Structures are given as C-alpha cells and as structure tokens.
C-alpha cells in the first residue's frame, strides 16, 4: 500500500505539459514515411539552392556532351537532344517546381483564408456569393482554366503561379469557411465577442489560430497539386518558356526520343514523382499528427 502511494507521489500525475505543436511534432517523428518525406524535401531544397551557385555543367550551355548520350561517365544522367547535361537541368528544374509549388500556396492562402474567414464568420449574402462562386469553380475543369489563363496572360513564372492559384483557391476557402462556421459557435469565441473584441481581432486572433492545423494540412497537399499543374502546363508547352529547364518540359522533350534516349524522360519523371510522393506522405503524416481523432 505504502509503496504504491509513494509511487503515485513520485510519478507526476500528468506528463509534462505538451503543447499541441510539440505533441504533433512528436507524433510526426514516429511516422517513418512522413519523416522520409521531410528528409527528401530537405535534400531537394538543398539541391535547388546549390543549383543557384553551382551545377556540374552550365544549365543553358549547348553541346557539353554528345546529344542523346546515355547516363554514365561524365554525365550521370545523360545528355539531352541539344547536348545539355540532364543532371544540371534537373537540379535547376527543382527551383522552378519548388517556387511554383510554394508560391502558389502563398497566393492561395492569401486569397482563400480571408475569403473563407469572412464568409464563415459574417454569413449572409457574402457567404452565399462565395459559396456560389466556389461551386462554380468546382464545376469547371481546373487544368483547362489554367491553360486558357496562361494562354491569355502569356507564359511566364508569375502568370503560371497566378493561373494555378486561381484554379486552386477554392479548396482553401471552403476549408477555412467550414472551420470558421464551426468555431464561431464555440464558447471562447462567444466570450471574446461578449468582451467586446473587434471582428478582426476575433477572426485573426482567435479563429485563425484554432483553424491552423487543417490549413497547414491543406497547404501541404496543395503544394504537390500545384507542382503537378506546372508540370502539366510545361508538358503541353505552356509552362515557363524555354530555355529555362522545368521537369515537365524536360519530360515532354524526352518522350519524343524515348526509344534512343530513355534517360531524358525517365530522370525528370522520377524526380517529379518522388517530390510529389514526399509531399503527399508529409501531408498524410501531418494529418495524422495534427488531427489524431480523424484517423483514416
């Protein structure tokens, strides 16, 4: 009896205070696939940064190797149709993919979060208009809208990011709206309202921090979607214009000569798939970590 009592006293009643974020981080670390995703993405960012100052061969330089040369020797991943080194171009292509992926999400957050917050909190006609527009956008094939926008605006990096964001903002707006709708009925929001807090303070000080988990998950899944879109656009010849290397346009160039130089298309394809996979695994891990109730 005494021994158990002593044990109870010496053992702290509750484990040390763990905040939501450190708790989530602990759960995320246990998820091996998500961790692998983080490691790969860190590697990718490093590669993209290194490519800024150094690539094995100059990215734009034509004729550094024999055209269509396979992998091995001087050129690890082979040489493309114009005699450019594939590895160097792959490294530089990582920059475009990451810029488009993250840039699009920043724009999507900037559009979707305020709209979703306002629609969910103020309800009324504004909410109805927003819901109508969101449903309208869901009905139109997003890739076609992005294609036509890039066509109308002209293909360059900024316009591509704008075009992809225009077709992807509804997911975020709908999510934030739904979160806001459920959070605004909770007691702590009512308390804030009763104590006379301004709507902006309630929205950005109380509702947004509580909706942050789902928003982060959504943004993580949004990055690979945007990268995929950019690859599609580049593949169809409406991406960042040549000679800037992008994975999509490299694959499009390579698929034509698939019989004689398969490495030209395999290398960017695998890089693209691995990147998308890493983001998706990370997103899955984050979802399990931040929202343990909603286990798949």
């Amino acid at each position, binding site marked *: 009896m005494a021994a158990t009592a002593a044990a109870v006293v010496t053992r702290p009643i509750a484990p040390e205070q763990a905040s939501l974020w450190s708790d989530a981080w602990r759960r995320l670390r246990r998820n091996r696939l998500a961790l692998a995703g983080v490691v790969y993405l860190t590697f990718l960012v490093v590669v993209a940064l290194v490519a800024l100052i150094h690539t094995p061969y100059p990215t734009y330089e034509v004729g550094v190797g024999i055209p269509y040369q396979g992998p091995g020797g001087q050129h690890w991943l082979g040489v493309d149709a114009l005699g450019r080194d594939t590895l160097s171009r792959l490294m530089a292509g990582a920059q475009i993919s990451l810029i488009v992926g993250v840039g699009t999400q920043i724009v999507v957050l900037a559009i979707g979060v305020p709209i979703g917050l306002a629609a969910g909190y103020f309800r009324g006609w504004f909410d109805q208009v927003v819901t109508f527009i969101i449903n309208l956008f869901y009905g139109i094939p997003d890739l076609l809208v992005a294609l*036509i926008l890039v066509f109308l605006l002209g293909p360059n990096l900024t316009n591509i990011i704008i075009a992809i964001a225009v077709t992807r903002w509804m997911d975020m707006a709908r999510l934030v709206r739904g979160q806001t709708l459920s959070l605004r009925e909770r007691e702590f929001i009512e308390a804030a309202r009763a104590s006379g807090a301004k709507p902006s303070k309630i929205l950005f000080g109380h509702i947004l921090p509580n909706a942050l988990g789902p928003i982060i998950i959504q943004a993580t899944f949004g990055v690979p979607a945007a990268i995929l879109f950019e690859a*599609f656009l580049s593949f169809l010849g409406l991406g960042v214009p040549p000679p800037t290397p992008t994975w999509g346009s490299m694959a499009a160039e390579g698929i034509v000569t698939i019989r004689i130089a398969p490495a030209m298309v395999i290398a960017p*394809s695998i890089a693209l798939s691995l990147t998308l996979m890493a983001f*998706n695994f990370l997103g899955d891990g984050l979802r399990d970590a931040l929202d343990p109730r909603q286990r798949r």
Partner: protein
Amino acid sequence: MFTRGTLIYIGQRLVLIVLAVLGVSSLVFLGIHRLPGDALFSEHLHGTQYELTLHHYGLDRPLWLQYVSFIGGMLHGDLGESLVNRGVSITPIVVREMSVSAEVGIVALLFTIGIGMSFGVVAAIRQNTWLDYVLSTTSVVGYSMPNFVVATFLILAFGVWLDNITQGTFYFQIGWPGRYGTIGAIWLPAFALGFPYASIVARLTRASMLEVIRQDYIRTARAKGLREWVITIRHSLRNALIPVITILGPLVIGIITGGVVIENIFGIPGLGKEFATSILNRDYNIVIGVFTGYAALVGLANLGVDLLYVVIDPRIRY
C-alpha cells in the same frame, strides 16, 4: 427508377448545361478578343488581301456585333470556321473529337473504379496486415505519379523494353491506329489516365468499407451463415459505395482534363489534342470551339454521375 420527377430534373439540368456552355464560351470569346494584336497578322498577308481575310471572318466588325453573331451561331450549333485552315468548319471536328475523348475517358473511368474498388475492398478486409500496408502505400505512390509519368513507363515497357527483350515478338502498336473504336489502342492510354485517380477511390473505399463492416447488420449476416464473399460484395460493398460515388463528379472532371496530356502523348485525336494544338497554333476559333465542347462534356458527365446516384442508391430521388 426514372419517374416523371426525374425526367423534369433531367430537363432542367439540360437547360442549365446549355446556359453554362454559353456562359463559358462567351467568357473565352471575350477573353480571347481582348488579347492584343490580331489573329490574322502575318508577313504573308498584305493590304487588300489582309482586309479581305479579315472581312471573310467578320473580324472587321465591332466587337459587340461579332459577339452577337457568335452567340447566334452557337445557338444553331455553329462554332465558326478555323482561322488556320480556311473553309474548315469547327462543329463537326469538335463533335467527332468529343466522342473519341469520351471513349477513352469511359475506359479510363472503368480502370479507375475497378482498380480502386478492388484495392480498397481488399485493404479493408485485410486491415492492418502487410497486404493492407502494401496496397495503401501503393495508393499514395500511384496518386503521386502524374499521368504522363505512368504513360511514359507504359510506353517504355510495352513499346520499347518488351519489344527489345523478345526481339520483336511482342510489339505493341502504341497510338491511335486510325480506326474508330479499337479497344487495343485505347487501353494503355486509358490505364495511364485512370490509374492516378484509382488511389483516391481506393482510399475512400477502404475507409467506408472499414466503417460498414463494423455495423450490426454485417454481424447479423455473418451469424446467418452467409458466405464471406456474399457479405463482402452484397452487404458491405453496396453500402460502402455511397460515399465513393460522391467523388465520381470530381473524378470525371479529373479524367477529362487529364485527357489533354494523355491524348497528346499517345496521339489520340480527341478534344485534348486539338486543344493543345489549337492553342499553340493560335487558332482562336478552334480554342473557343474546343472549350465549348469541354464545357458540354463536363456538364453531361456530371449529369450522368448524378443520375447514377439514383441507380445505385434507391433512397436518393430527384
């Protein structure tokens, strides 16, 4: 199944589809006509010749008049004339290409649903076994592969490696053979088109199957001594299907848009190939026409999905 109410519903939806198609094509029309420059500007056309060509296409009229005649033509099913190939009218082209795209899309959808549901069902029945983990991981891998990557590896496998290894015994003609409706030319592109979406179906099926097989009526069915596959297929899967079909709408749109890429890789003369070609050729009239065709295709596909609900779940009624 299809009551009078359903028919009225279909009628209303068709009217809405027509309105949506008109709206979408008007937006594209106005967007394209706002572009700087001139569709026919080139160094081969000078003076009178240029004026005559402009006049032929009615591009010398004010914008509102062009728009009125464009909408008038649309209402008669006339999408105008190609700017690059003079005298070629667009409507028959778009209609033919729509049927090709629809054919590939339907086969792709069958792949998506077939692969996705079988993966999902197996993963749910064998929950937390190695099979479940393998299938779930495969799903994420499949979802992360863009369809042109799947297509690339299919072409490599069937068009290059298999041919090389067997010294030409197994040689697959990849691409459209020119005949209409041969499944053999469709199934590789359709697989590449449908496979990335199969993982979404697999995840949903698994999740909703897991929920259903814990229900009391499944225990009842098992207690009655029904065979296991009867329980799985007739009692569990049928109920697990309902959340799955809600994703069919976005899925169909995904497959339709994915077709743009796949058709260009495999050289299938569908809407997607025409879309990319016409954009690169700057044949504005065809761009508008193809976009109109896409709007119609998406509208009709969504209507089809909504009607499918009624077939699968008799509780839903319009």
